[in-house]
């Protein structure tokens, strides 16, 4: 473990340190607080110029960090997160700021999200210490709540972590706390970054009078932002089948991927069924049936199969998989079927995709590169993002898409002193001193104050609708997986393993979802049999005739007579305001 001396990190600080050294170590130690303040000022004046706080308020906040961190000075802590721009900024820049200001060194590792999940699962299962904290997607909230291995932050902040909890943390300012709260009302994770999955399209093509006229002549309505899956399908067909070429280049009305690979699972576990309308009403996830099709009664999952009251193999879920395979086969580029998430992610930027129903806003910064054919020379986008269209089973009051919420997560097995030092780092990364700058770098907002800031208004035009989405009420209907999912790591592979069978025509969508629902129930039973959950373990319903459940109100919903109602579109500006 290297010895730290934060006073050394600027020439001025070093000079001061040498001068004081002759006076004795006791004085030197107390004067390090001064050096921390000098470092804090340096960081405020350089890196953290964009903040919703005044400079004085920033300095007050950082003084609190300097004081609270005193007992942990010289400590090295280890944390891990997934590989996105926001976390690179944290790992390469903010760790240095934190060390300079507090004297706590942080090794912030970056890896794939699947590896983060494996690492936190391993540490929780084996009680084998790897990391002091994790930035883990809040999709695991149901897992963390049930196993009792994750620290309830609500308790920690007023209990053993009270002396290291930032007075200006301002939890009410966070936009994603409902995603990280357990059924008991306690906060288990603290959001560090959020991004959504929205509709993406080529605004420049949609604005062309010739294409607009052609679309209207074929489909009878305007070529604008699709509000339902019928319109999305019509637009997909329009570009792939009728337009075919723009400026001499083959174009497609849809982009997706279908390779048998773990990344195929995200395409579905990240709320695809809810977009079709498979679950129940209720924000953030639908109750009693969520977007995974899992029914919960009194916090206990009781089944995913329709025969047990779930909706994973119900008509709405099967419809959503049918449309996925149909659009992939008919409207996407021919090689899309053999691509995984990373390969497919690059395609919209290459300039031959007209729209994509399922697009992660984490790609925003990457798609503003002025060298791309989808941006103007000044980097302003030719594309826009907008709230996603909804399937025919969707009803008012339901969630309509996915939001990724990478959140600070602490295990109870981490020694208290290390946990406290890591909690200080976590809060530094989301503090108002830092968060606006971090949001500008990574475009993954977590605070309402940042989203509503003058600085955000000034730069909003660069990001194709991202800021507008986060300023609208829509942001609460785009949510991560929720508390119905009892053990995310133990169940998630069922998505890619089964959907791949439908994507590659080995099973029909109904057969694939029947198989998956059966396996989901079996796995949930296995989780209960293992006896490791501290609370709210699955208690499967006895199977009943599917007709019984389909006749009950809400999910699982019976098959609609007409799954393709009239297509509806809205002009871009109106589509952004549709949720207000």
């Amino acid at each position, binding site marked *: 473990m290297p010895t730290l001396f934060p006073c050394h990190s600027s020439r001025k600080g070093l000079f001061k340190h040498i001068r004081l050294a002759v006076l004795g170590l006791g004085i030197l130690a107390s004067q390090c607080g001064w050096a921390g303040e000098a470092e804090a000022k340096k960081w405020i004046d350089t890196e953290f110029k964009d903040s919703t706080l005044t400079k004085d308020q920033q300095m007050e906040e950082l003084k609190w960090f300097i004081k609270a961190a005193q007992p942990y000075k010289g400590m090295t802590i280890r944390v891990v997160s997934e590989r996105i721009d926001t976390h690179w900024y944290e790992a390469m820049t903010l760790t*240095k700021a934190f060390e300079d200001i507090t004297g706590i060194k942080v090794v912030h*590792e970056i890896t794939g999200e*699947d590896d983060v999940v*494996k690492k936190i699962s391993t540490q929780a*299962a*084996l009680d*084998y210490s790897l990391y002091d904290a994790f930035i883990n997607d809040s999709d695991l909230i149901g897992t963390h709540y049930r196993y009792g291995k994750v620290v309830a932050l609500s308790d920690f902040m007023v209990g053993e972590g009270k002396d290291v909890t930032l007075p200006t943390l301002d939890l009410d300012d966070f936009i994603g706390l409902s995603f990280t709260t357990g059924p008991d009302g306690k906060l288990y994770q603290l959001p560090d970054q959020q991004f959504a999955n929205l509709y993406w399209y080529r605004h420049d093509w949609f604005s062309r009078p010739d294409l607009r006229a052609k679309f209207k002549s074929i489909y009878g309505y305007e070529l604008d932002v699709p509000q339902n899956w019928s319109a999305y399908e019509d637009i997909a067909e329009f570009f792939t089948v009728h337009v075919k070429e723009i400026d001499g280049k083959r174009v497609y009305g849809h982009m997706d991927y279908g390779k048998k*690979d*773990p*990344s195929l699972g995200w395409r579905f576990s990240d709320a695809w069924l809810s977009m079709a309308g498979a679950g129940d009403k209720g924000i953030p996830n639908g109750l009693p049936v969520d977007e995974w099709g899992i029914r919960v009664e009194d916090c206990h999952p009781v089944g995913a199969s329709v025969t047990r009251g779930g909706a994973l193999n119900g008509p709405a879920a099967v419809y959503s998989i049918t449309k996925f395979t149909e659009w992939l086969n008919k409207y996407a580029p021919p090689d899309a079927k053999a691509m995984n998430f990373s390969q497919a992610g690059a395609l919209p930027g290459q300039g031959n995709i007209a729209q994509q129903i399922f697009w992660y806003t984490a790609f925003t910064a990457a798609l503003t590169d002025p060298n791309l054919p989808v941006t103007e020379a000044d980097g302003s986008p030719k594309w826009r993002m907008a709230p996603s269209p909804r399937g025919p089973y969707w009803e008012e009051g339901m969630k309509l898409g996915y939001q990724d919420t990478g959140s600070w997560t602490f295990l109870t097995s981490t020694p208290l002193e290390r946990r406290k030092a890591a909690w200080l780092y976590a809060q530094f990364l989301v503090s108002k001193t830092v968060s606006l700058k971090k949001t500008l770098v990574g475009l993954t907002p977590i605070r309402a104050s940042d989203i509503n800031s003058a600085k955000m208004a000034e730069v909003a035009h660069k990001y194709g609708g991202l800021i507008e989405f986060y300023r609208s009420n829509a942001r609460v209907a785009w949510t991560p997986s929720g508390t119905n999912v009892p053990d995310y790591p133990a169940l998630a592979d069922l998505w890619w393993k089964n959907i791949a069978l439908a994507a590659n025509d080995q099973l029909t969508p109904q057969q694939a979802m029947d198989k998956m629902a059966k396996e989901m129930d079996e796995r949930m039973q296995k989780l209960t049999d293992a006896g490791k959950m501290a609370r709210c373990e699955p208690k499967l319903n006895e199977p009943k005739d599917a007709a019984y459940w389909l006749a009950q109100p809400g999910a699982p919903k019976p098959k609609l007579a007409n799954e393709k109602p009239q297509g509806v579109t809205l002009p871009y500006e109106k589509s952004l305001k549709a949720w207000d």
Partner: protein
Amino acid sequence: MRINMKLKTMAAAVALTFSGIAAAANYTLLTEELPPYSMKLGGKVTGASVDIVSELFRRSGLSFDVKLQPFVRAVDSTKNDANTCVFPVERNQEREVSFKWVSPILVTHTAFYTMNDSKVEIRVLNDAKKLSIGTYTGSAPAEYLSGQGFEVQTTPKDAPNIQKLAAKRIDVWAADTLTAAYLAKEAKVTNLKERLVYFSALRALACNLGTDDSVIDKLEVELKKMYADGSVEKILAKYK
């Protein structure tokens, strides 16, 4: 009595069937030479990961042989041959679909090393980006750093990197922490300095897809016990 006889006959047949399976299923466990994780000493394959996996199979009551094989060949053999596993393997998205997994048999750490008198400053991973980094071909550090856009100079074996570092032909050596300590000791180099442990990885046992789920479950249960009773730490300590 007749019923009793029938039950006895059935019991004998069941016992015979199980012993038949156990006798038939001898597992071939493949690993590349990577001291001190796996190496040949006195004609015997040994090392930290070999000892962990061998103990795991012994505790699970499974018959096995450990063989050294180049990594790429070992991975291919495991994909194609029944009752075959390869270790230690980083479990990632690309490989996930090709094997059945038992994890983690090891947690490894990679770090940047310099000589004691080096003036380079490495506070975070990217600080090394402007430096000349040495590692060995196909290694975990090489894979990770290349994946992050770092340029690395590779050698077929890791040991020469210590000499390259001493001769200032590279600024830093990126290496596994256990391997670095082992190679430094072998080379009698005492002025090596660990600058930043920048990544930890879970290493798994990857088995042929035809491996019975009950075998994988059994291995996982026993592996958990080995962590819980300190056996894994004890084996690793022998090689630190």
